[in-house]
């Protein structure tokens, strides 16, 4: 196996293996061998996160494992990102994400953020316990392509509907693709409130977002 492919494979393996130190060392080796930082990110780090996402969906990995993979991935990103030649930030799709007001459970939302960032989205994280109006205001001010709303509690599902009504009141609903998710949310609920997409987990969220982009 040529050194380049081998190094990229090692980088991907280090991420899947939850090994932060090895990810950093391999990222440095990638640079020392004159491999393009972008390739290191896309074919090494992101590939590793992709595989971690698959293991998560197959119930080989659970949330602690996925979080450790993402720590390794971000540590590698810190090494490689300064060496990116030109950052095509203008190309990045903006994704405003948050947990709706009334709920402070944000583990799922954080996982979606990690997977979206890995997949090249620019994620604007509003955090947890976010009022409906703030989703609207921030999505407008940053020129978001997507709004992602999550909740783990049935108590707060009405707040999600409110984001839709606020956008409709301002007649700007069509400017955004809206994705919803979280424990009590189902495809049926997503359809009823008129969401563009629903994802059952973080890995699925990336596929749904990409599919929505493809349907432009």
């Amino acid at each position, binding site marked *: 196996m040529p050194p380049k492919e081998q190094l990229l494979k090692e980088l991907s393996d280090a991420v899947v293996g939850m090994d932060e130190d090895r990810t950093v060392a391999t990222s440095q080796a990638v640079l020392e061998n004159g491999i393009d930082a972008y390739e290191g990110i896309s074919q090494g780090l992101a590939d590793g996160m992709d595989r971690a996402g698959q293991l998560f969906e197959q119930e080989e990995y659970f949330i602690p494992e996925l*979080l450790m993979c993402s720590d390794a991935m971000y540590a590698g990103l810190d090494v490689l990102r300064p060496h990116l030649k030109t950052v095509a930030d203008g190309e990045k799709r903006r994704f405003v994400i948050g947990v709706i007001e009334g709920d*402070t459970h944000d583990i799922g939302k954080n996982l979606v953020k990690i997977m979206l960032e890995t997949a090249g989205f620019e994620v604007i994280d509003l955090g947890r316990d976010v009022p409906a109006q703030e989703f609207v205001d921030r999505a407008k001010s940053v020129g978001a392509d997507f709004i992602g709303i999550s909740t783990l509690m049935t108590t707060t599902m009405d707040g999600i509907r409110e984001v839709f009504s606020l956008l409709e009141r301002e007649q700007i609903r069509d400017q955004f693709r809206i994705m919803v998710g979280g424990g009590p949310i189902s495809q049926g609920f997503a359809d009823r409130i008129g969401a563009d997409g629903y994802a059952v987990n973080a890995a699925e969220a990336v596929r749904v977002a990409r599919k929505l982009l493809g349907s432009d």
Partner: protein
Amino acid sequence: MSTVNGLTARERLVGILRHRQIDRPPVICPGGMMNAAIVDVMNRTGHNLPEAHSDAVLMAELAGDVYQQTGFENLGIPFCLTVEAEVLGSTINIGDLACEPKIASEAFSSTAQVAFKDPDELLSAGRIHTVAAAAAILADRYPDVPVIGNVTGPISTTASIVDPMRFLKELAKDKANAHRAISYVTDFLCQYAQLLLDHGVTLITIGDPTATGEILGPRFFEEYAVRYLNRLIDTVHAAGGLIIVHICGNINSVKNFIPEIRSDAISTDAMVNLRSLKEEYPQLTTMGNLSTYLLQFGFPDKIATQAHRLVQDGIDIISPACGLSTSTPLENIRAMTEAVKECASDFAGGSASDTGNSMEWEVVR
């Protein structure tokens, strides 16, 4: 008034937990994470949240209102999951009438930083004695109705005092400190449960929404959840008390560990097929699991049908599957409780005595 077919509500619930023959399954809503302090109830009585979270008399009044209006056969306190985290140092947003209290910020950024406080100091802080005093009022006022003291589980409480993302990683990365922090939290929860039993609660229910198979996976569920839940369970048993554990979410990945949890009953979420769980592990006393989504948005006849189905399936204790929305209509909850109470006495319940012929039942009109 609380005596039906010769059994009081208390005798029926305690009976099923002690594997005795009873006439039909009790229908309960334990409180805590799974409480029925819905807006419909509060609007009728004026005993309101968030005030009742911090006032023992109001807490007892509201628990009594919930009992009298919903038809659930128990009294349950408190109405949140934050009592424990608050005294351990986290900042709480107390919520409002329709929105339950939540953690505003966790006290510590990692398990290594968890500073141990003196247990006596913890037990005299925050709302601990509010809950204990409310228990005493209820136990005195309703001798025939089981009073359930709800305690937040070890994993969820620790994840409410340590940044949860960091906490979940440290379950794998820094096991020594993770165990140290959870052990400290569990010891405090043991003392809190003991205090509630001393103040007259009939039993303890543990809600531990972070300790799920979906979040932890089998490895960490066994290493942390089962181990510390059992420490808490053994403490309650040693004090002569009864204890129910509720497991949130899908239990598929951790199903083989469920029988290792030594509680007197296991309650599960809506997606779990309790009938097959019981078939697989006949020794389990099962509780659940009427969809809270159905309770909030469904029609009363559909809800009654589902409640009947649970009784027919031989589920030992009928309850909502998880936390109820505060906007759940009272009419829907009544449909559930009345449907269970209508079930005839030929229900052959009691997990130890289950003959397999408990499928026959009639509706008494």
